Structure formats: structure tokens, C-alpha cells
């Protein structure tokens, strides 16, 4: 039997909700599934609509475009919710950009 995927707690500062997110899901996938109105558009690391401040915790990032999240932004603690998979419990705060 395959081992169960680890699940982490993700606190979304803007909505004040804490949701469960499996380690093989992105924070955006978990948020949308939980009914959180997280801003997003491409959901594949191209547009930066879901760009967020990672306030606490660790994530791993799926492939994304330079234009969506640059090295300096990454260094300053920004992340893309659509590409970020939790590696610990996480607190995250989306920035202002909202898709229509």
C-alpha cells in the first residue's frame, strides 16, 4: 500500500481561514477546493495574479515563468500560490492583484 501523502495546514491571512493542503497539491488548488476566493488567472505560473507573501513556513515551487516570479521576488519572500506546494505548515497572504 502506498504511504499516505502528508498534509499541512495553510493559513490564508487575507481570508482568515486555515485549510488542509496535501503535499502533492498546490496552495491554490487546496484554497479553491476549500471555497476560498483566492485571486488567480493562469494557475500555471505565468501571470502572477496569485502572487503572495509567504509569511511563515516552507514551500516547493513547480516550474514558472521568470516574468511571474523573479529571483529577487523569491528572495524577498514572495511566492506563487498556483505553483507552491507546502513542505511545512504555512502562513500566506495574497497581494492586491486580482483577475476579473
Amino acid at each position, binding site marked *: 500500500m502506498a504511504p499516505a501523502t502528508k498534509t499541512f495546514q495553510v493559513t490564508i491571512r487575507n481570508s482568515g481561514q486555515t485549510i488542509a493542503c496535501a503535499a502533492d497539491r498546490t496552495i491554490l488548488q487546496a484554497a479553491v477546493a476549500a471555497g476560498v476566493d483566492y485571486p488567480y488567472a493562469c494557475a*500555471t505560473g505565468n*501571470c502572477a495574479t496569485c502572487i503572495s507573501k509567504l509569511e511563515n513556513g516552507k514551500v516547493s515551487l513547480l*516550474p514558472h*515563468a521568470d516574468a511571474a516570479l523573479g529571483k529577487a521576488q523569491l528572495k524577498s519572500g514572495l511566492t506563487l500560490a498556483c505553483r507552491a506546494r507546502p513542505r511545512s505548515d504555512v502562513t500566506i497572504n495574497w497581494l492586491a492583484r486580482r*483577475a476579473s
Partner: protein
Amino acid sequence: MPIQVDVAARRARACKAFMAQVHSTTAKEGITPSTLHALKLKLVALAKRSDLFPLADFAMPQAHGRSHPLLVEEDDGHGLYLSISLPGKEAAPHDHGIWCANAAISGRERHVFYRRTDDGKKVGSAEIVKVGEVVIEPGTGMVMADHDIHSTVVIGDRPAVGLALYGYALARFPSVTWFHPEFTSVRATPSRRHAA
């Protein structure tokens, strides 16, 4: 000893000549399935001239995907780019509102094409079905009309390097509509038509 013609200068000349061909083709007939096909063939021919596009001349992505402008026209003109995408780099199904053509220099990228099946009346919701698929690799390319929907993913273990011609420059793109079958949702990024 013959003078070595600088690659960058040769590349610039080739891109300029290519764009002149593009305008010559579309000026006669406009943007039609036939002219788009012709543009694809011209772009594939340009991409085959790999000596013009040595990777050393183009920075690799810091993350996983980067576009280098080769020839970007003013105002409502076209944009020609060299794009580098690393394995796994993807884009969800989207309609970027303007025609485009792609041709590979190296590596492989899968494009899947879709058709929207809902009536668009429910805001934020959409359904799409797959209607086709093509893998772009050296010697091949693809073309899309203004509102065609495609997704992309780099396959294999090598970067996909290719040429991309868009009806508008990336900095002047219309709103891009993104479809998410997993969420049965549709979202749009703002138009850049008046931003550049």
C-alpha cells in the same frame, strides 16, 4: 581571410526580412487560415537556421521560462520572440485573443487544443473539450487564430527553445482568458492594449 559577419547582425537582418515577408503575405490577403499557415511555414524555415540563434546569445531563464524579443514592432505591430522554457514549464488552456505561430529550434513542447462548449452565461465558469494535440519539435511549428484555445507543456529533459510570432507584441497583449477544467472556472488577465 573573410570577415566574419557578426551573428547578431545576421540574425537582425534575417528577422527583419522575415517580418517583411509576414507583412507582404498578410497585406495581400489579411489574416486567414491560409495566410496563417504560410506564416507558420516561414517561421519554421527561420527556426531551422539555428546558426542564427546560438543559445550563448540568450540568457537562460532564472526560473523556468523566458522570452527574448527579436523584433518588436511599434504600436499595433507584431512581436517576434525567442522563447526558452525548461522541462515541465506549462501553461493552462488559454485564449490569448490574438493569432500566433510557433516553431521549434530545439527541444519539444506539446500543444493541446480545445473548444469551449458552454454558453458563457455563467460568470467565472467555463467548460472546454480537447480537440487536438501537436508536439512542436525542430522542423515543425503550429499556428493559431485569434481566439483559439491551447495549453502548453515542455516535454522531455531538454529546454524547449523556439520562435514565437504574435499578432501583437507581448507588452500590448489583449486580455488573456484562462480555462481550468479542474475548477470548471475561467479567469482573465487584464488587457495590456493601452498599457505599453
